[in-house]
């Protein structure tokens, strides 16, 4: 629960719109996969939208974000163009990565997204490097690494935390703990459910928060970003959440074990979208506006799909371009 109750309706509806955009985009992608139109492997973040929305709303355009295999939400929340996202997933030349990257390799440097990649945890050190660059330049920008609970088992997560803590770099380590790495539950991979505690080891600020409450996430991210900008170093946020769909693709992954159905029963009612709607009402917002917003968002996604469908494929004649760039 958020301490601060005086969030403006504007801020809340902004968070709401970001979450809707993510949710509806992901659902549309799910349908397009089922329809056979999308082939690139997609890792949907339905259920986890509050993390992307809450964190990105705390950032400036020049702050950088770095993601992984499950990063459609990060791209959209930071302000990435939905047309270019959809076109990328369709493998088109107009995609954000011009058809080279697919769902797992998104980029939008104009809004501070420097790349997402599916090697688990691989962008954590890169985000630390962006923080190091900011420190050297004194530009006040913050770098955010988004990653999952699984990524904390990679050694470079620890190396990166130590590195960022040692030099007090302006980095937010945002762990979306959805309790699974592919089919493997957290308890099968870690002796304790204590990701946030890693912060103690490095003497940095660390928090375990409700990752399904966009306002809670936002508040924590704002505080972390402020600390980072003030030279007080990195923060680790463990955002507890749950992925509704399968590890990859639109299925529900009920085959990972008996606990999955129980967990879904527990988590579906924690849907971050209705939870925020309730807050907006409380803050004096108008729910009918939210409904209009839903229509807007759907229309935008329709347009993005149309754009993607109508876009040309990449030119095979350019297959070998830009392995290296020419010297300018």
């Amino acid at each position, binding site marked *: 629960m958020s301490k601060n109750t005086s969030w403006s309706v504007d801020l809340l509806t902004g968070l709401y719109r970001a979450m809707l955009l993510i949710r509806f985009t992901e659902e549309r992608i799910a349908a397009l996969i089922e329809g056979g139109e999308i*082939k*690139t*492997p997609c890792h949907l973040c339905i259920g986890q939208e509050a993390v992307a929305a809450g964190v990105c709303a705390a950032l400036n355009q020049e702050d950088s974000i770095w993601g992984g295999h499950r990063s459609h939400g990060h791209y959209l929340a930071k302000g990435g163009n939905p047309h270019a996202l959809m076109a990328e997933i369709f*493998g*088109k030349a107009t995609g954000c*990565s011009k*058809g*080279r*990257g*697919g769902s*797992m*390799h998104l980029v939008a440097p104009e809004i501070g997204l420097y790349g997402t*990649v*599916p*090697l*688990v*945890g691989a962008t954590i050190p890169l985000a630390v490097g962006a923080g190091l660059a900011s420190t050297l330049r004194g530009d006040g920008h913050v770098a955010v690494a988004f990653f999952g609970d*699984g*990524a904390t*088992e*990679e*050694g470079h997560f620890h190396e990166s935390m130590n590195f960022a803590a040692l030099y007090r770099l302006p980095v937010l380590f945002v762990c979306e703990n959805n309790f699974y*790495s*592919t*089919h*493997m539950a957290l308890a*099968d*991979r*870690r002796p304790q459910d204590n990701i946030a505690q890693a912060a103690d080891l490095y003497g940095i600020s660390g928090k375990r928060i409700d990752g399904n409450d966009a306002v809670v996430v936002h508040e924590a991210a704002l505080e972390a970003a402020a600390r980072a900008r003030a030279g007080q170093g990195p923060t680790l946020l463990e955002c507890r959440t749950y992925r509704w769909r399968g*590890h*990859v693709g639109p299925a529900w992954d009920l*085959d*990972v074990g008996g606990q999955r159905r129980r967990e879904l029963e527990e988590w579906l009612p924690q849907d971050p979208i209705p939870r925020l709607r309730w807050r907006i009402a409380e803050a004096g917002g108008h729910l009918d506006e939210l409904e209009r917003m839903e229509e807007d968002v759907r229309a935008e996604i329709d347009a993005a799909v149309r754009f993607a469908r109508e876009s040309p*494929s*990449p030119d*095979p004649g350019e*297959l*070998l371009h830009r*392995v290296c760039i020419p010297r300018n």
Partner: protein
Amino acid sequence: MRRLTYAQAIREAHAQLLRTDTRVFVCGQGVWNPWYAGKSLLDLDKEFGRRRVLDCPVSENATTGAAIGAAIVGMRPIVFHARMDFMLLAMDPIVNQAANWSYLFAGQVQAPIVIRCVINRGGEQGAQHSQALHGLFAHVPGLKVVMPSTPYDAKGLLIAAVRDGNPVMYIDDRWLYDDTGDVPEEMYEVSIGKAAVRRHGKDVTVATTSFLAAEAMKAVETLAALGVDVELIDFRSVKPWDRDLLFSSVGKTGRLVVADAAWQSGGFAAEIAATVTGELFHALKAPILRVCLPDAPAPTSAVLERAYYIGAGDIVAAVQKILH
């Protein structure tokens, strides 16, 4: 004879090894679930228990290192990497440790580890989920590297790898998992370092790795129809590779095309071409051509993937080029 798929053959080798040798265990990410391994490890955990078939945290270095440590103290582990790409996080244990262990200590201790890894590409997965990195490992002394292309070899090479006593990289290819072939029920070995002649011929030698063996077979048929008699060699092992067989074939045909679906520069095909040109120069009637991937990462868009990957057509073209 009984027919199995490539994936079933791999699974059967695992099961028989686990059943007959208490030193054998399997570890790695994705061994309890078919998402990554397809049917190649299906339900082994149910049959042999989750201690001997251990699905591991997302820690490639420690998992590989632990398997190597267990091997050094006398176990015969098979450590599984669902994609070669992930294994780059385990280069220190593989290249610095396992590969060196025997030599460093003059053979008094060994690391009899099988590092099984999958080439899993295509399907718009992109640059980091597509790599065929056997060339890196074939450069490193102390590692053996095998790449079965048939269900028969898949089973026999895994058994040979576990029994070999040295670190062996066992590299299989998801594109082959549904291929079927004759596979004996009993345990048997395919010798590491021995290639197979898939077709005898006299005009030109085509030598392949992994799934390109099947592509080359199609190429052979096309070429036969054009009157070209190809001798087709499937390396199966890329380190050590079968010099005797290749040399006797090229000694006869005087012409060689090497097809290897990895980056061309500095890849395995380069080693073959360099060795043949160094040692069999006077038998050569034509340039040795390589049919390899271009020196670029894998793209995602299917349109680009089609332009990127190689197959029978490329082999036909290369053969025609050195004949004319």
